[in-house]
């Protein structure tokens, strides 16, 4: 299926999480920290919030969200 990461179309297998999909876009980074560092999913289980992204217009955790066709995902921060 196709999802959009920062407006670029990315082809990903069905059933995977948005956190997993980042790797298909070439960089696993999910956000920039308040001092500008790149961060990527860290705990993988909804605890650390490093994977928070704008997903279909809402702030959600990439590690606890499954990809849906046409989903719009944006790196935050």
């Amino acid at each position, binding site marked *: 299926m196709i999802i959009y990461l920062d407006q670029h179309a990315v082809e990903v297998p069905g059933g995977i999480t948005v956190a997993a999909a980042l790797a298909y876009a070439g*960089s696993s980074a999910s956000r920039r920290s*308040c001092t500008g560092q790149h*961060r990527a999913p860290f*705990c*993988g289980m909804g605890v650390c*919030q490093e994977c928070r992204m704008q997903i279909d217009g809402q702030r959600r955790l990439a590690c606890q969200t499954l990809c849906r066709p046409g989903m719009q995902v944006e790196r935050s921060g």
Partner: protein
Amino acid sequence: MNDWVDHCDLLIVGAGPAGLSAAQAAAEAGVAAVVLDDNPRPGGQVWRHGPGFAPPRPARPLLSTLARPPLRYLPGTRIVDAPEPGVLLVEDEQRGWLLRYRQLILCCGARELLLPFPGWTLPGVTGVGALQALVKGGMPLRGERVVVAGSGPLLLASAATARQAGATVVGMFEQAPLSQVRRFALNLWRWPGKAAQAAALARRGYRPGAWVVEALGTDALQAVRVQTNGRVRTLVCDRLACAFGLVANTELASMLGCQLSAGTVAVGAGQRTSVEGVYAAGECTGVGGNELARVEGRIAGLTATGRHAEAAALAGRHRRWQAFARQLQASFELNPAIAQLARPDTLLCRCEDVSVAEVAGHTGWAQAKLHTRCGMGACQGRVCGTAARALFGWGPGNPRAPLVPARVATLGVYGTGGTGDD
């Protein structure tokens, strides 16, 4: 129900081995239970599954109970607040609402103990179970070089998953000394089904008494520095999975007023907490593996549905797995050197980018939070507060609402959607 309020006789939080076992007991009694979990798929940590990773055989009958009415399963649902006794404020992707319950079983499980070391914020560095979870969620790993480090039997499980996904595990480093790991392995025969784990401990490339002192890279991980026998060497890798065992998730229990003991939810006979009508089972009451979690979940489910004799009959099995849990704790005790790995400029709080030096000067967690914003970010101190406990011995703060970041519309539900009465 209206749109704002839902009711149930029995609410089970967590769809891991403990929660599913409680749900099965409730289903047998025909009780209309609701099982709620923040993950999109059931199974908790150990039975996490996804494309290419089917749930293990023992999990399947338990997973299928979720589809059995009158049980209701709410995936992808988080608990935001406990505004009054018997009522939780919850939200899913679409909406927020109030969930009223008569009885509650907390099966919130455990998270990893993630401790700071130089470079731990680089993309490419994750927890140990975290790497496993990401791979089961579909993260490709083929051809990557992976280092697994930290402490506990989870290192082996995570390395196995990485290999299965096509990665090369270039090193496995366990901080506990060889003598302790060997004693643990030698004792495993006493618990059926654990012998394979003992064999895996003897695998080549598994180094006890060793740990990662630094992760290197600019925008992403490129290598790690590893200390073995007092010597430090550099190992090139694409990923580092590093965590130091598990800590119980106690935030919700604590918000409900349940007593804690030694960082876990305190329970008595029948898995009762100190709060009437609230039970707790599985790793939120102490880390001990999925077998212990299953027995405890079943005991809680049986007790909550009034089948006390059946619950009492499980006491022997319960005690046996508790002994295994104690063995686990003693074998992977943390070396004090691990708490010294962070440098003054290493970040402690990843949400607000607060360094160890900024926090270290304070006398306790509350004061450090007030002056540095450490622990005030999105994770609510679940990572840095837990690390500060290990580094400085500070006690945990009291959890405050919202328990997790929530939408403004959800926070408004308690006021506008009325009280728990409808």
